[in-house]
């Protein structure tokens, strides 16, 4: 089972571990093995209708005409829903916490921006009747130039994917087209380095591929409310998103969820609930909208692909003195949660290592791909992949063992991080030491004795005076002869009408956590 190394950091906590190290049964395990666990689609409602969505066959096109006349007469069709029928047809998920601009339609109106974008929803008595009606819908596309590469999207003259963001990047704090991190003096750092390496890392979009696809069933309830069974990972989030899109008070809805057939971040986008609820409102009947597997792959968000350029300067004694990161997250055609992923990415730089000169620039870029969203540590995991590959390469360049190299460069308590906060509660060194022990990977005695504790760092080897591992600096001092302004705490946003859904600010998104 689990091995617990209580001797580490024993003085920093009480030794009263009652639950750690023991297997604890899930409260729904009995339900899982008996089939009693209820997923959204396990609800059967009388008179339920089926909703299927006609999706864009073009990655980027104007919608010249949508002809529904034949489809509306198709047998079994109860209602066809278009963009004009959606009360508030433009939304972005994080508007609930006042972050971002509404950029994504529930149903496309004049333009489609990715293959698979929803255009029209057909509500019918049976799935096959919905498919038959869909086959009768005529859409006239006027194809537009496409852009699928993050760096191409940022070049002047690139096709504008999403007019809300005309430069194809998300706008932070209403001013900035990317997220920045500056610490020390990167060029001086590189000048001091004995070796400089630069590599490009590229991730693919990754599909969550949960065994249960996204879906929901919405039904009119007895008192003017609607009950919604949903696969969402975020019940309140989805409820408030629907309240906004459908322009009703949030107490109109009773969202029922709880057992999700796999999420991993792929069920936070509230992809199906707005339409299933709207269909229930328009037909007065229960409506089910479940994604098929192909739809789940094409339309439901993946983890966004990231392109990362990492340039590091390292001294021959193994200390990394400069790290420059330029990265692009491919958000696809709309923001969803990618804007937040980029914030996390920058917050994570330069990795768990003390590096005196750090320069980070991360962009949230729009392309004509399926919009990307959260997945398992999004914003962090891809950057970690790049950083750790780079650490191995750096170790090789200086001729050091890669485990020892990490221990040498790891942050320790009291070190100043690139975000101008002192590192606290660090433990990377101990993790690497135990991993090396477990893998029977020999590391030298001096590295086995290193510690994350404050003041435990061996002093850097003496060098000429011009080189200094930069101590903590007062954050507000402006740097001479630089046009760039160091980041300030976010300005107070202009007063806005209180959102009807009552959401409150989530401070860490603004990067200025106040204690």
């Amino acid at each position, binding site marked *: 089972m689990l091995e617990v190394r209580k001797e580490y950091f024993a003085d920093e906590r009480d030794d009263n571990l009652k639950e750690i190290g023991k*297997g604890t*049964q*899930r409260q*729904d*395990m*009995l*339900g*899982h*093995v*008996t*089939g009693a*666990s*209820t*997923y959204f*689609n*396990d609800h*059967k409602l009388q008179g339920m209708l089926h909703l299927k969505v006609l999706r864009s066959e073009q990655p980027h096109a104007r919608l010249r005409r949508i002809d529904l006349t034949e489809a509306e007469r198709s047998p079994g069709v109860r209602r066809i829903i278009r963009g004009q029928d959606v009360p508030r047809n433009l939304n972005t998920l994080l508007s609930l916490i006042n972050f971002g601009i509404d950029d994504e339609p529930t149903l496309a109106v004049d333009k489609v921006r990715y293959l698979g974008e929803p255009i029209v929803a057909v509500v019918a008595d049976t799935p*096959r009747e919905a498919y038959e009606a869909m086959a009768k819908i005529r859409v006239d596309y006027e194809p537009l130039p496409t852009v699928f590469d993050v760096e191409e999207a940022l070049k002047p003259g690139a096709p504008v994917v999403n007019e809300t963001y005309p430069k194809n990047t998300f706008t932070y704090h209403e001013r900035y087209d990317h997220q920045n991190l500056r610490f020390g003096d990167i060029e001086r750092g590189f000048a001091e380095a004995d070796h400089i390496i630069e590599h490009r890392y590229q991730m693919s979009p990754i599909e*969550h*591929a*949960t*065994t*249960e*696809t996204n879906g929901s069933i919405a039904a009119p309830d007895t008192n003017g409310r609607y009950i919604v069974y949903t696969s969402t990972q975020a019940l309140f989030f989805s409820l408030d998103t629907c309240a906004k899109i459908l322009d009703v008070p949030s107490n109109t809805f009773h969202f029922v969820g709880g*057992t*999700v*057939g*796999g*999420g*991993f971040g792929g069920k936070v986008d509230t992809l199906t609930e707005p339409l299933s609820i709207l269909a229930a409102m328009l037909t007065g009947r229960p409506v089910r909208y*479940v994604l*098929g*597997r192909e739809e789940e792959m094409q339309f439901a968000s993946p983890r966004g692909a990231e392109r990362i350029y990492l340039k590091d300067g390292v001294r021959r004694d193994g200390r990394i003195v400069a790290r420059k990161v330029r990265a692009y997250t491919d958000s696809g055609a709309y923001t969803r949660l990618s804007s937040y992923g980029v914030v996390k990415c920058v917050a994570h730089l330069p990795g768990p290592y003390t590096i005196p000169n750090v320069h980070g620039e991360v962009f949230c870029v729009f392309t004509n791909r399926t919009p990307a969203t959260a997945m398992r540590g999004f914003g962090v995991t891809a950057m970690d992949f790049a950083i750790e590959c780079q650490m191995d390469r750096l170790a090789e360049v200086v001729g050091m063992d890669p485990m020892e190299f990490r221990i040498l460069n790891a942050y320790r308590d009291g070190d100043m991080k690139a975000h101008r906060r002192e590192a606290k509660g660090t433990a990377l060194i101990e993790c690497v030491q135990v991993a090396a022990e477990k893998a029977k990977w020999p590391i030298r005695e001096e590295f086995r004795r290193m510690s994350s504790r404050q003041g435990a760092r061996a002093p850097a080897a003496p060098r000429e005076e011009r080189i200094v591992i930069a101590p903590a600096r007062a954050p507000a001092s402006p740097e001479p002869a630089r046009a760039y302004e160091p980041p300030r705490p976010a300005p107070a946003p202009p007063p806005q009408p209180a959102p009807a859904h009552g959401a409150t600010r989530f401070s860490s998104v603004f990067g200025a956590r106040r204690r």
Partner: protein
Amino acid sequence: MMIPLQFRHNGRDVALFVDGATNLLTALREQLGDTTPKFGCGQGGCGACTVLIDGASHLSCLTLAASVEGRSVETLESLKDGPRLHPLQKAFMDHFAAQCGYCTPGMLMAAKALLDRNPNPTRTQVVEAISGNICRCTGYEAIIEAVLDAAQQHRASA
């Protein structure tokens, strides 16, 4: 076009009318209210819809409901004996062989199909028996251990 259909569902005789092209998964879930087999892909790739027909594993999403006329269909509902869990169910619990639980009904039926025919499977045979079932959460090890353990428990008590 509705056609009559009679078969044994978890030991009970049932009779219903199905649309000719309805798949067994839909008939079980929506007409008989047995929601234990799950929809995962509709393509035969995930195994979440696995049921036993005359003791052999089948993918109910690809099976015509009409084709089970006169046959025996078993789903997860049939595993429990009153309040008593089947050794497989108990072993899945003991080994933490589920997280989201969505693949679990299919996994249990695939495992049951194996153990009903081969009470002493090797690990390789267990892996092959569940090779048509996808789990996105557990990484499969706990499931394999659970099936082997259930086989052993069952042999010990037999």
